[in-house]
């Protein structure tokens, strides 16, 4: 076949305009546009819907978290831990069902972390030798299949095994959760710090350095190992890879046309061996190989290639068992510290509408959406207050903010129902919820050793002044021997909103008034002593408060 030396196309090529249109309509061009638009939409939605802008663009609220709702790994894992598929997570079928026909198209067409990985790899590969067929052939290409690519399946098995015994840890490595979390805790504050006074003051996030460095490390790994995260670590990719063994469409190679040049590997994103027996579970459906093949030997077709293909991943049985055991063993090791039950931390305060701790840990995918929408920045990515499982789950830090009285934003954005979408009436115990009472996050306690009128004979009344409940849960009383009135918390009225701790002039991490998780309503139903955090004897219940009922 005569080829044009410059373009590599057949010499009898069509006129210029048609050629340009065909170029633009190449599948890879369309794919790049789709990838860019998806990533761009995600980033701009997240930037536009920080808490202050949430009211200005209410229509965006439902769309910001859409990627989380279509995440099949989140849906699968929460279904395993809770035996239910929560609400909007059913949208994950939108990704699952096409995967069963088309393969892992999600990884290269939609996943924003995939797009970022691909972009970083592309930046570094522009001078790479892989552009031309190497003298050694495909075995030296950076896109050759490597055994390390099996690791992600072991990661998936370990996470699924952990979920089977009741602990949800997929959020740590799930790419969608990871990208949302990194945008919230690392990227957005950096953007805010570079534009002072224009956007709101930069928000603070505990441990943001770790979240940011994780993202940076994963992106930097692409410089040495293309699509490192996607090929080696991604549990969602592993799940979709396992599902694509049933797929109808795949890359087909015509051995009569194939010359064995290995050019198809030049930009192969999945390292799936299109030049020999295609590894279906690794193919990311990027279509680069089809474009790169000078002989036109590859196409996206419905039948397996004549010389065969590898439908499923190459997994060693021994590794699988070890991975499963690792996942199973994680649970007793994590729970064995007792931080979730008897040795619970009084400083572990969860957002309003959060379920009881064991149920919460079965649902939280650590996407940190609640942290992003919180208007006062009080919700923080957790550290190990709830033991090993609590990393990056939302905890409240009243030195940074407080829980605004009439706000229920966190529950509205939680995709898995770890935080329930409550109404203001439920939160404050108003109207028909008066009998049930308000949702308490905890209780405030005065530290008389630090409190100024108690211990230093100095007038102060800030906690009483700022207490937002009506009637106020803090009042001042004059005690004999004290020159100025001292504050006193009414345990039946305090809802643990933390405004008193936030505003206390005795600042730092040991404030003169501070909130603990004691008395939180989400734990009060449980007769088991190690999960019940009541302080006072509760009044006999007339009915189970609606907000405390377990999910249907």
């Amino acid at each position: 076949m005569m080829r044009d030396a410059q373009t590599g196309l057949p010499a009898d090529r069509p006129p210029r305009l048609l050629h340009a249109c065909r170029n633009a309509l190449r599948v890879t061009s369309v794919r790049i546009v789709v990838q860019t638009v998806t990533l761009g939409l995600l980033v701009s939605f997240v930037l536009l819907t920080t808490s202050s802008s949430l009211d200005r663009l209410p229509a965006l609220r439902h769309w910001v978290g859409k990627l989380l709702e279509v995440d099949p790994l989140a849906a699968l894992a929460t279904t395993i831990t809770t035996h239910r598929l929560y609400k909007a997570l059913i949208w994950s079928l939108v990704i699952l069902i096409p995967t069963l026909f088309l393969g892992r198209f999600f990884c290269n067409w939609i996943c924003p972390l995939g797009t970022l990985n691909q972009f970083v790899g592309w930046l570094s590969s522009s001078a790479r030798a892989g552009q031309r067929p190497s003298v050694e052939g495909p075995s030296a290409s950076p896109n050759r299949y490597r055994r390390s690519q099996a690791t992600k399946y072991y990661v998936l098995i370990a996470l699924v095994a952990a979920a089977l015994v009741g602990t949800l840890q997929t959020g740590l490595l799930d790419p969608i959760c990871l990208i949302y979390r990194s945008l919230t805790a690392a990227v957005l504050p950096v953007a805010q710090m570079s534009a002072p006074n224009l956007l709101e003051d930069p928000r603070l996030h505990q441990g943001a350095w770790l979240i940011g460095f994780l993202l940076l490390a994963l992106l930097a790994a692409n410089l040495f190992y293309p699509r490192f995260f996607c090929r080696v670590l991604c549990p969602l990719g592993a799940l979709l890879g396992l599902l694509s063994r049933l797929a109808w469409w795949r890359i087909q190679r015509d051995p009569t046309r194939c010359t064995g040049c290995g050019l198809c590997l030049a930009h192969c994103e999945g390292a799936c061996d299109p030049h020999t027996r295609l590894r279906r579970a690794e193919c990311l459906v990027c279509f680069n190989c089809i474009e790169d093949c000078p002989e036109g030997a590859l196409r996206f077709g419905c039948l397996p290639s004549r010389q065969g293909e590898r439908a499923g991943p190459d997994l060693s049985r021994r590794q699988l068992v070890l991975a499963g055991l690792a996942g199973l063993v994680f649970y007793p090791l994590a729970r064995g510290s007792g931080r979730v039950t008897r040795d619970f931390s009084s400083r572990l305060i969860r957002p309003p509408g959060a379920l009881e701790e064991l149920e919460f840990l079965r649902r939280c995918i650590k996407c940190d959406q609640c942290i992003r929408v919180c208007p006062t920045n009080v919700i923080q990515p957790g550290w190990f207050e709830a033991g090993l499982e609590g990393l990056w789950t939302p905890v409240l830090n009243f030195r940074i903010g407080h829980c605004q009285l009439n706000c229920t934003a966190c529950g509205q954005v939680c995709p898995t129902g770890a935080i329930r979408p409550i109404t203001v009436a439920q939160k404050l115990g108003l109207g028909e919820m008066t009998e049930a009472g308000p949702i308490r996050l905890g209780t405030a306690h005065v530290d008389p050793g630090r409190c100024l009128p108690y211990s230093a004979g100095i007038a102060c009344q800030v906690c009483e002044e700022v207490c937002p409940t009506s009637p106020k849960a803090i009042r001042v009383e004059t005690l004999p021997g004290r020159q100025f009135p001292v504050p006193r918390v009414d345990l039946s009225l305090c809802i643990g909103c933390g405004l008193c701790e936030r505003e206390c002039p005795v600042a730092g991490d040991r404030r003169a008034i501070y909130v603990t998780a004691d008395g939180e309503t989400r734990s009060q139903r449980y007769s088991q002593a190690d999960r019940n955090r009541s302080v006072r004897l509760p009044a006999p219940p007339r009915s189970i408060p609606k907000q405390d009922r377990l999910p249907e």
Partner: protein
Amino acid sequence: MTDRPITRRECLARGAGAAVAAGLAAAGGFLLHDREGRDPATDLPSAGGLRDFFAGIDFPAGSPRIAVVVGHEQRIRQMVQAALAALDPELGLKRFVGRGDVVLIKPNVGFDRPPHLGATTHPEVLRWVIRLCREAGASRVMVTDNPIESPQACFAKSGIGPVVQAEGAELVLPASGRFRVLAPWPDPAGQQATAASIDWQRWPLLWEPLDQATRLIGLAPVKDHNLAGGSMALKNWYGFLGGRRSQLHQAIHEAISDLALLLSPTLVIADATRVMMRSGPTGGRLSDVSPGGKLGRPVLVASVDPVACDSWCYQNLLDRDPAGLPYLELAARKIQSQIRAGRRRFGQSDWRVYGSEGRIATISV
């Protein structure tokens, strides 16, 4: 001979480059030299002093100092106009705001409460003040406050934010870059410095709008205050403070009287359309709120003397004895030194003095 031969041009170029680099390094070193090892006392940039926002106003000696308007909830516009007309029948607000003035209006947006609970300024009062400022020829109208809770929530919930947007005024949010500490006062006699009780060079103020404004109008709701006694025109200035201002509660009367000394406004309007009689300043119950307090009908009090205004409102609206409000006397004493030096005109702690001089106008609409 191992060296590469060098041309004259190259030699000169290199020498010149080295000389320039050396010169820059030396200059940089000398400019930044810190011989004493100065202690950076605060990480906030300091600003100048505060200007007198009453300067340049030709206020007739015989005019009323306090104007009280009793009206109706549906007649807020008439109440605002009547209050200003009472202070100056000829010009009204135009006596105070001229063409080209940059007006800063300071309402109370301190709490995340809806307006009917009386914790914040009535948005309709603000609306008409903004309009009248525009009619008087103001080139810019800014509205600001530094609430305790999230500014976005407070401005939205109190109804102030939407009114500011609707009237085309500027909403100045308390972003951290807008705060400064005051520079040492350029007061040769040192009177202002010694008169103040608090070391104001340690406290950040919401400086940017104050610096840009030529006129300052305070719009304070009249409220009970559990610690200070009352929260009215003078306590309203608290909203200019940043930092850990809750520490000032330990000397609240000293702090309020100092603010009265520091800020010499153009006008204050006490918004007594809904008076919080108990549980102030946060409130939260409708049963604590009464229109006009003791008077039972919505009231607006416009005044050029914030101290006397507070005194009047404390007695006639909150129904308490101003003698029991320590900051009034303290404020009057501090301002007295300014009055003697001819730098201020008004600072009377006992409203009855104006009453006896016939300088209180009372109107009903």
